[in-house]
C-alpha cells in the first residue's frame, strides 16, 4: 500500500469516527466502544476492497458484509452515508422512532445492509448461508463478516465455524474485533478467549492475527485470505475499544454509554473536526 492510499484511508477513518460520534451524540447515548474499534476494518472494506454500488444496493454480483455485532451499526451507517447509499442527514435520526437507522443492523430498513443482526452469534451463520448461495449461483463475489470478541462466547459461532470449514467456503472472510472488553469487564475475566486465532485454525479455517487499526496489515491479511480457495478465513483484529474517541478509548463501560454535549465537543475537537 502506498503512502498516499494509506493517508487517504486514515483520513476516511477519521471522517467515519466524526460522523459516528455526531450520530450517537445527537441522541446522547449509544454503542460507542464497539463502533470505534471496527472503523479501520470497515473503512478498508468499503474504500479499498468491496465491490458495492450505492446506486444499486442489492446489485447481484456485489460483495456482501454481515456485521454480526449489529450494535456497531452506527459506524457502518456512517460509511454507507459517506458512500451515498442514503443521505447523510439520516445519521442524525439514529434510534429515533421511525428511523431507517436502528441501533442494530436491519436489512429491511437500511440501504446497503446485507443482513439483519443484533442477537449475538447469529450473523456468521447467515454469512455461511450467503456464501453457500454464492457458490450455488456460481458468482465470484466474496462474503465478509465481522463478529465481536464477546460475541465469540456464543456457541452458535462455533457451529457456523464447523459448517463453513465443512462446506469449504473459500469465499468467506471473517474478522473478529478482538478489543478485549465486553459489557461486564475484560473478556479474559468474564470468559477468556485466549489465543483466538488458534481456535479458528483448529476449526479448519485459515487464521491470521493482526493490528486491526493498521491499514497496511489489513491489506496484507485480506490479500492473503483471498488466496485461500477451499477454506474460510478468519482475521483476528487486535483492536482498542473506543479507539480514537477521547472519552471512550480503552475504557470499560464504553459498550453502551451516555454521550454528553461536552463529551461530544471534546471528542470532535480531538479528531480535528472541521479541519482538512
Amino acid at each position: 500500500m502506498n503512502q498516499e492510499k494509506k493517508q487517504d484511508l486514515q483520513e476516511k477513518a477519521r471522517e467515519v469516527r466524526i460522523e459516528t460520534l455526531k450520530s450517537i451524540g445527537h441522541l446522547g447515548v449509544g454503542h460507542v466502544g464497539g463502533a470505534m474499534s471496527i472503523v479501520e476494518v470497515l473503512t478498508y472494506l468499503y474504500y479499498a476492497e468491496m465491490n458495492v454500488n450505492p446506486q444499486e444496493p442489492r446489485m447481484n454480483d456485489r460483495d456482501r458484509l454481515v456485521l454480526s455485532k449489529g450494535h456497531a451499526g452506527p459506524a457502518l451507517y456512517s460509511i454507507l452515508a459517506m458512500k451515498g447509499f442514503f443521505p447523510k442527514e439520516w445519521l442524525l435520526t439514529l434510534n429515533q422512532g421511525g428511523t431507517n437507522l436502528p441501533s442494530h443492523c436491519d436489512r429491511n430498513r437500511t440501504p446497503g445492509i446485507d443482513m439483519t443482526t443484533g442477537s449475538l452469534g447469529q450473523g456468521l451463520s447467515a454469512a455461511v448461508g450467503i456464501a453457500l448461495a454464492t457458490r450455488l449461483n456460481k458468482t465470484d463475489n466474496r462474503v465478509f463478516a465481522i463478529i465481536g470478541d464477546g460475541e465469540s462466547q456464543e456457541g452458535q459461532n462455533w457451529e457456523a465455524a464447523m459448517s463453513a470449514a465443512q462446506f469449504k467456503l473459500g469465499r468467506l472472510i471473517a474478522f473478529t474485533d478482538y478489543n478485549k472488553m465486553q459489557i461486564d469487564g475484560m473478556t479474559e475475566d468474564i470468559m477468556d478467549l485466549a489465543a483466538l486465532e488458534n481456535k479458528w485454525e483448529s476449526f479448519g479455517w485459515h487464521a491470521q492475527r493482526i493490528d486491526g487499526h493498521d491499514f497496511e496489515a489489513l491489506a496484507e491479511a485480506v490479500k492473503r485470505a483471498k488466496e485461500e480457495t477451499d477454506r474460510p478465513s478468519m482475521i483476528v483484529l487486535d483492536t482498542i475499544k473506543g479507539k480514537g474517541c477521547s472519552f471512550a478509548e480503552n475504557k470499560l463501560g464504553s459498550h453502551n454509554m451516555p454521550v454528553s454535549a461536552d463529551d461530544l465537543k471534546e471528542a470532535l475537537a480531538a479528531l480535528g473536526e472541521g479541519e482538512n
Partner: protein
Amino acid sequence: MKKLDTYADMRAVYADTLIEIAKDDDKVVVMDADLMAANGTKGFKDAYPDRMINAGVAEANMVGVAAGLASQGFIPFASTFGCFAARRAYDQFFLSANYAKQNVKLVGSDPGVTAQFNGGTHMPFCDITLMRVIPNLVVLDPCDTVSLHKLTKAIYEYKGPVYMRLHRKGATTIYKDDQEFEIGKGVVIKDGTDVTLIANGLVMVTEAIKAEKALAAEGISAAVIDMHTIKPLDEALVAEYAKKTGAIVTCENGQKIGGLGGAVSEYLSENMPTLMKRVAVDDVFGEVGTQDYLQERFGLTSEKIVEAAKSLVKK
C-alpha cells in the same frame, strides 16, 4: 410422485413433493440437521445432491444458514424434529428468519405423541404455541398425504417464513386428489348441526372423524373441520360454525395453552362467546410409550372428544 394414497410414510410425501418442486426451480434447497434419513429428506439428496445441505447436529446454525440463503433469493426448506426446530433454534428462527423477513420454511417432524419412544425430551407439545407468537408467521399442521402434498406446494408459493409440522412415520389419506387447499382456509370434512369438532394434524383429525361417527350413533350431529392452518386462523369459518352449532370442541396433538384451542378461544371470546372445550395436552411434559399409550395418557382420544362434545350439547 406416486399416487398419494399409496404412500406408507408421510415423510416420503414431503420429500417427493420437494423433489417435484425443485425440478422447476433451482432456488429450492433442502436442509436437515443429521436427520435426513429420519425425515425422508435423504430422497431429496439423492435427486439433487448439490441442493441438500446437512448442517449436522447444529439446528441453530442450520436456521441461521437458511436465513442467509433466503437473503440471496433461495427458498430453504429446513427440517428437524419439532422439539429442536421450535426450541433449539427459536431465536434464530425468530430473528434471522422472521424479524429479518426471510423466506425460510422450517419443518418440525414427529409432532406431539408421535415422537413415541424418543420420549419426553423429544416430544414437541409446545411448538405450535411458541410459533404462534411470532408476528406474521404462517403455522401449519397437515393431516394426510393429500393435504401435506398440496400445502407443501402452497408454502413454496407463499413468500415468507412458515413453520409446518410433519407427521413422519405412517400415513393416512383422507382427501380425494382433487381437494383444494389454501393457507388460512380450513376444510369442512363433515357438516353437522349440534357441535363442531375443530381438529388438525394426522392424529387428531383421525380421532375427530372417529368421534363424529360415535356421536352420530348417539343422535348428535357433529361437524368436523380440518384447521390445517393455525395461523392465520380461518376466523370466518370458526364464526360460521360457532353460530351454526353453538358449541366447539378443539382437538390437537399439543399443549392446551396457546395452541389451536387457544387461537379459537381467543377469537370467539372477544367476538362471539361460544361454549367450548379443548381436547389437548394439559400442561404436562411428554414421556415414552407407544402412540396408543400416549394418546390415552394425555387424553388425545376420540372418547375424550365425544365426552367433551356431549358435555356441551347437554347444556
